[in-house]
């Protein structure tokens, strides 16, 4: 048995296949865990406890809810575009799994440490926007379309300062390879030297994942009912899980770029394995994003967009120019 494992893992293809299976399992477990975490965090912030009945501490609640969603009837609106309607949830869910291949969980663990790792992550997360538009258009629903349009405008507006802040870090490390970026932070984490970029990135990441206070596209109380209104059952479930997985991915990228990935503070690992550092930091950022949702009211749509174009982009640009200047001088 051990011989077989070694043979499989030694072989490049074998290693990839095993890795992909592990990535799939991990991302699903992670999504389930995050849904549970959100409900518990929401509960405690709201002076209640959240799920506690199903499983110890309500941990099995998400699985049970997923089973419920699977059992629901998949209703397709009468004049909806059938192909687009079926593709949209899939298109939202699959690209979100790709970044797991390049995320540097620990020194040896990025499944395929591509030298354009960062680019891969951001290019696949942009497909999210397309999928939302397809979902909104394919629903044949005035409100869903309005929600999808707003979501596209929001995502485009916030994509720019996101990439600008990431560029500031890339200028410093001169590489797009995730593991090298982490290694460049072995003496100090980048958020100490790039606080503005870190803050901008975090705000844009919250907006990219359509989380509160930027959650107009999926808001239930606004005039528009949200782009995923017409999707029932597991189709909605896919949108839902994709959102939480996306939250994990952006937080993981933030950890890699600004919080040092799997390194300990100032290089002291304190005997804790790298993967634990990585996961701890990522989940801390995820908790902060959840904290935002239950604390702040929503921004009005035009305020949201003007905040990005008039405040974040100039800020991120200025940061980039200053970074470039400082690097040139030093």
């Amino acid at each position, binding site marked *: 048995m051990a011989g077989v494992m070694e043979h499989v893992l030694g072989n490049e293809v074998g290693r990839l296949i095993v890795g992909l299976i592990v990535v799939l399992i991990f991302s699903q477990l992670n999504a389930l865990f995050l849904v549970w975490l959100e409900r518990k965090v929401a509960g405690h912030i709201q002076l209640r406890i959240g799920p506690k009945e199903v499983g110890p501490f309500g941990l099995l609640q998400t699985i049970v809810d997923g089973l419920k969603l699977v059992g629901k009837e998949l209703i397709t609106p009468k004049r909806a575009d059938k192909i687009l309607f079926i593709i949209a949830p899939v298109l939202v869910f699959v690209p979100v799994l790709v970044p797991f291949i390049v995320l540097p969980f620990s020194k040896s663990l990025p499944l395929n440490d591509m030298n354009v790792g960062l680019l891969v992550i951001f290019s696949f997360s942009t497909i999210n926007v397309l999928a939302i538009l397809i979902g909104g258009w394919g629903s044949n629903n005035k409100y869903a379309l309005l929600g999808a349009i707003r979501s596209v405008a929001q995502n485009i507006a916030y994509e720019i300062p996101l990439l600008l802040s990431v560029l500031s870090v890339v200028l410093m490390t001169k590489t797009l390879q995730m593991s090298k970026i982490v290694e460049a932070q072995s003496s100090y984490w980048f958020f100490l030297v790039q606080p503005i970029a870190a803050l901008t990135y975090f705000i844009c990441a919250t907006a990219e994942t359509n989380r509160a206070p930027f959650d107009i596209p999926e808001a239930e*109380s606004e005039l528009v009912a949200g782009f995923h209104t017409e999707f029932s059952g597991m189709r909605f479930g896919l949108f839902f899980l994709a959102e939480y997985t996306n939250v994990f991915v952006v937080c993981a990228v933030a950890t890699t770029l600004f919080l040092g990935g799997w390194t300990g503070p100032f290089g002291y690992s304190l005997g804790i394995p790298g993967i634990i550092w990585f996961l701890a930091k990522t989940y801390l950022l995820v908790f902060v994003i959840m904290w935002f949702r239950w604390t*702040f009211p*929503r921004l009005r749509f035009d305020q949201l967009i003007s905040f990005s174009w008039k405040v974040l982009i100039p800020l991120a640009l200025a940061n980039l120019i200053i970074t470039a200047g400082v690097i040139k001088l030093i």
Partner: protein
Amino acid sequence: MAMINSEPEVTREYFLNLGPQHPSTHGVLRVLLKLDGEYIVEADPIIGYGHRGHEKMAENRTYKQFMPNPSRVDYLSGFIYNHGYVLAVEKLMGLEVPERAKYIRVICSELNRISSHLLWFGTFLMDLGAFTPFLYCFDDREVILDLLDSITGSRLTYCYCRIGGVAKDIDDQFIEGTLSFIKRLRSRWTDYHNLVTKNVIFIHRVKDIGLITKDIALKYGVTGPNLRGCGVPYDIRKAEPYEIYDELDFEIPVGEKGDIWDRYMVRLNEMEQSCRIIEQAIKKLPRGPIKASGVPVKIAPPKGEVYFPFESARGEAAFYIVSDGTEYPYRIRIRVPSFSNLQALIEVLPGTLVADTIAILGSIDIVVPEIDR
């Protein structure tokens, strides 16, 4: 009806329906919006989806049998309406109510006012996207509901006031519970102000939006916190005092411009003033009977009519009772503040963004069943 054309008319403006089933219109309200892009050109509130025939019921029931109905007209200020109804009938009959009963009724009315404002606070913020204050407010409200439940027997729709007094006396447990509740509520103000009032996102969504100016308010008969928000210090408890309000010392919070922010601050400050009223009333609570003596079993007021206005949580509510001398009223007309408050939207909404509609609607605090009765 217009002829059916072969092609639909293409205009720049389009119609959008807000409601009647919508998570944010508080009740079954339908607002037909004519939009030009994101800006509202015309707004037309359409009501009647919740008509229950309360005023018709009044014609076929005796004064005593009608008593459960006023609470259900505006179920959030249920006690205040119940109180107003018995006050109107007592005025028609010329009945004198013992002091202790008056104080008890005022204490419970003010508790009801606080609970209505708390619910408004929670739902208004939920419409804006902040879900958490809703649960905090309901947590506070639970205490009020439990307190009132212990003496009246109901949590939401009360029938505790009787023509001539109240049904049951209050005990020390109620008084202690009320005082400790007030203390607890006062400690909440810091939380609410820190988390909501000072929140930049919230301020940007409510400042200078939804201006109900003084002229619009006076034109449509807007009353309550909406009127006080634009600077008019009109509160029936001070303008035409009833019960013991003229013996108590409280202020009327007033706003400046009439935007959502002013109405929000007026309601928050009103809750504090209600706390003051309750404390004073409890301190001055006299001993004595809780029901007037000599109230006839058959309530048949003399022929005549009375218009009795009182301050509900939403504004000036009133009972206009016409009596023909029998024990069945000839006509009971209920003047509800939300009816007039809603009409101001016809002038306030045009020119605003559709995204602000929900915020403005939430800020005028209407209860749609009250409009439809």
